[in-house]
């Protein structure tokens, strides 16, 4: 660490944002920020980077007035301010694009744009003016949005633009972008970056949060690295390598590759036949998808979000009804079976959204661990639970999966993100599954937990389980998979039996629909 010099802050530089000694303790006892100093210069793109749970969003929510700091001071343009609510932050020229969309789905783009400050004729909202305002500001910044479309009908990329325009419309000069690229395709990301640079050149100050080191390297001027709620220093982007960044983020060198033996495929465990699905907005999300997965094998499914992966997983677990087709596990048809029956056949699932499906936040670790096995003989004595064996099992898994917690009855919702995921994984991996569906198993968790979970997945597959790995993380699918499928528009755009020769570029083209294995030359057509 000594080899790298912290960027010098000259005090006479007038800072756009200066946060001093910020601490934040949430009511659940989590100390998200600990004596953090954070400052941004005028007209720079400043990266805020750190593991999941490092406290980045918390710090920015404080800056936007959404959360109140437990202690600390904030200066905007050199002036001490008290930001008790977002409206005060907005008044100080701060705008924030949140990690999750902050849009009202049934309202139109224009209505969302002017929400909280609509133009009026008397007491009536001047809707036409709102549309004009939206169109005008979109044109000015070169964003392409449809003012009269309802937000629930527009694509993700457009939603992100609406979010940025919302901030600009409110006169923001300081823009906070909390992981804006997480949901964007690479093409959309490129375009976003172009526009952000333009904004910077116009004098906007931008705080940019991302986990993607390459994006940070590409876009930003300086960065603040956070770890465990603390600031680990401020650096010039040019003067630091990706390795050095990740070292500071996690406190040690990260092993990004996964070591695994060659797979020894066994019998077909999962067979998906002609699966089709139409969603409630009349879009065909799956179009007669078929594939097989064998024991001892990891099959990766890659693709840009929204191309049918989620629907596939949901159907496999009967959380949605397919329009057509069938799924077999070990020769048994499972379409339409209850989750109980599916699990009894040896299927387990790490759900994409762990807070919604994976855990009962207000229940203790033990209650969460036994969710799929509470009615097994081992945990019951007649009608009554066998608490001793439940506790033993829980304690064993807490130890084995290194779940950091106060005790087995601690509410899971109070754990950190990585530890929550470990609770889910501990349950799903310990039920002797023959098929593991891992949907974004490492999304939003820190490197240590990521490594641990990946290693366990490989271990289980080599021990004979079939693993279906769905991930938006290219690095992850490429490293982990024995075979790989790419989804595009509800079709299998490509499938590879050997992943070692794959390149990022090639995969990107398949994922964006520039190329399909069925009709290779399609690429040319689009390009012309």
């Amino acid at each position: 660490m000594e080899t790298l010099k912290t960027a010098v802050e000259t005090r006479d530089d007038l800072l756009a944002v200066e946060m001093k000694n910020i601490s934040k303790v949430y009511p659940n006892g989590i100390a998200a920020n600990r004596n953090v100093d954070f400052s941004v210069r005028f007209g720079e793109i400043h990266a805020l980077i750190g593991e999941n749970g490092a406290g980045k969003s918390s710090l920015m929510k404080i800056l936007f007035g959404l959360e109140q700091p437990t202690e600390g001071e904030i200066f905007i343009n050199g002036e001490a301010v008290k930001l008790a609510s977002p409206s005060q932050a907005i008044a100080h020229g701060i705008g924030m694009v949140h990690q999750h969309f902050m849009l009202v789905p049934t309202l139109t783009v224009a209505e969302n744009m002017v929400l909280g400050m609509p133009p009026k004729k008397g007491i009536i909202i001047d809707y036409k003016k709102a549309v004009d305002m939206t169109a005008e500001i979109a044109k000015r910044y070169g964003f392409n949005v449809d003012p009269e479309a309802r937000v629930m009908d527009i694509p993700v990329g457009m939603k992100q633009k609406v979010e940025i325009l919302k901030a600009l419309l409110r006169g923001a000069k300081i823009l906070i972008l909390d992981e804006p690229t997480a949901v964007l395709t690479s093409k959309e990301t490129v375009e976003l970056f172009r526009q952000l640079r333009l904004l910077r050149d116009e004098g906007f100050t931008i705080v940019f949060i991302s986990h993607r080191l390459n994006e940070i390297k590409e876009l930003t001027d300086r960065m603040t690295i956070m770890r465990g709620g603390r600031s680990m220093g401020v650096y010039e982007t040019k003067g630091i390598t990706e390795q050095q960044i990740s070292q500071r983020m996690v406190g040690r060198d990260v092993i990004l590759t996964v070591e695994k033996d060659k797979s020894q495929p066994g019998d077909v465990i999962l067979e998906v036949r002609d699966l089709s699905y139409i969603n409630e907005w009349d879009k065909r999300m799956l179009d007669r998808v078929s594939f097989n997965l064998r024991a001892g094998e990891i099959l990766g499914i890659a693709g840009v979000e929204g191309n049918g992966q989620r629907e596939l997983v949901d159907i496999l677990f009967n959380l949605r009804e397919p329009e057509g087709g069938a799924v077999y596990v070990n020769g048994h048809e499972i379409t339409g079976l209850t989750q109980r029956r599916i699990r009894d056949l040896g299927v387990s699932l790490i759900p994409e959204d762990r807070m919604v499906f994976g855990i009962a936040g207000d229940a203790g670790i033990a209650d969460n661990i036994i969710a799929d096995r509470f009615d097994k003989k081992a945990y019951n004595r007649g009608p009554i639970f066998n608490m001793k064996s439940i506790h033993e099992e829980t304690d064993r898994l807490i130890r084995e999966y290194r779940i950091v917690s106060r005790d087995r009855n601690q509410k899971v919702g109070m754990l950190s993100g990585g530890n929550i995921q470990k609770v889910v994984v501990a349950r799903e991996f310990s039920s002797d599954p023959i098929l593991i569906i891992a949907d974004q198993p490492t999304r939003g968790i820190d490197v240590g937990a990521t490594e641990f979970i990946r290693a366990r997945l490989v271990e289980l597959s080599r021990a004979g389980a079939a693993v279906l790995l769905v991930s938006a993380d290219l690095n992850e699918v490429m490293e982990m998979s024995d075979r790989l499928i790419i989804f595009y528009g509800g079709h299998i755009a490509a499938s590879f039996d050997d992943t070692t020769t794959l390149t990022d570029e090639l995969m990107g083209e398949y994922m964006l629909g520039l190329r399909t294995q069925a009709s290779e030359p399609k690429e040319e057509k689009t390009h012309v």
Partner: protein
Amino acid sequence: MYKRRMLGFSLIRGLAAILLALAVAAVFIFLATDEPFHALQQLLIGPVVSFGEDGASFNVQSFYQILAAMIPTIFTALGVCVMFSANQFNLGGEGGAMAGGFVAALVAIYLPMAAGLHPVVSVLIGAVAAGLITLIPGVLKVSVGASEMVSSLMLNYVVMYVVLHFLNYEFADRSKGATQTHAFLPTAKIAQMVRGGSRLTYGFIAAIAVALLIGIFMYRTRWGYQIRMIGINQNFATYSGMKVTSVILLSQFMGGLLAGTGGAIEVLGRYNTFLWKELPGFGWTGITIAILARNNPVAVPFAAFFIAYLNKGCLLMNTNSDIPSEMISIIQASIFLFFAAEQFLAGLRQRIVVKNARDELAQAQAAAAASEEG
């Protein structure tokens, strides 16, 4: 340490809520009467202490009356605990209690049985009838998605009118001036535990026992477990392979079953004929008690005692001074509001939490420093 502090906080908070509610009551008492201290004395200690010529003494009968008043509300509150734990806001306890009481009364009148068996069978049949009734909002919820809260509120009235119809046109004892059924067979009466007018029956023992059983059911059996998990996160329950629909139905059946048991025991223990002509009110009181008990079945008897005590205090205030006994509503509502307030005293809580986080941090640093030295 953390645990102890938080426990201490919960206790303080609960007490503060109760004190605040009593303070609200006191304000009204001062406004309403010229002898506020006499009234307050009646309210607070009157229920168990009687002031005779020879000084104060423990009022046993009054104490028994309080215990007796707890019987039906313990049951309805347990029902609420089960339903609310599953996140089902079924408010059908009122109708359940009335239906349970009525059906049990019919069995007690028309089906001769051996003495020991008769009350038990009557209560059980009444309870099942009530369970089937509160099941209706559950079925409507899981089949078509109709809000169980709305349909159960409506259903209460339907139950009431249907019971009144049968009471009036089929089973009324026409020799009496009031609308009531014929007298229960003597075999069906639930026996008194003590002499006097308190009506403290063996139903009380049953209530306490059932509270414990429901506690075990909720925290030590797979069905109670599923109910709790569904209440916390239904998506999670579905995904984990729990039988969500059946468990939701089970919870509402049990809610009615318990409310019906309460109604039936009350009818067979307190009265000689069935004579209710409106919804008995235990359903709503049960909700208050369940809130006070934070949906914990084992805490229900304590909360029920508290409410019954206050009720008695209000009655005494009414008898011995000029304050209407409806005062209880004001006390009950204030307790309700403050006790269930998550943010009540949140400032204090936050201070404890912050202090705790600091302590833990200091400890960790001390430990780190120690290990570095070592």
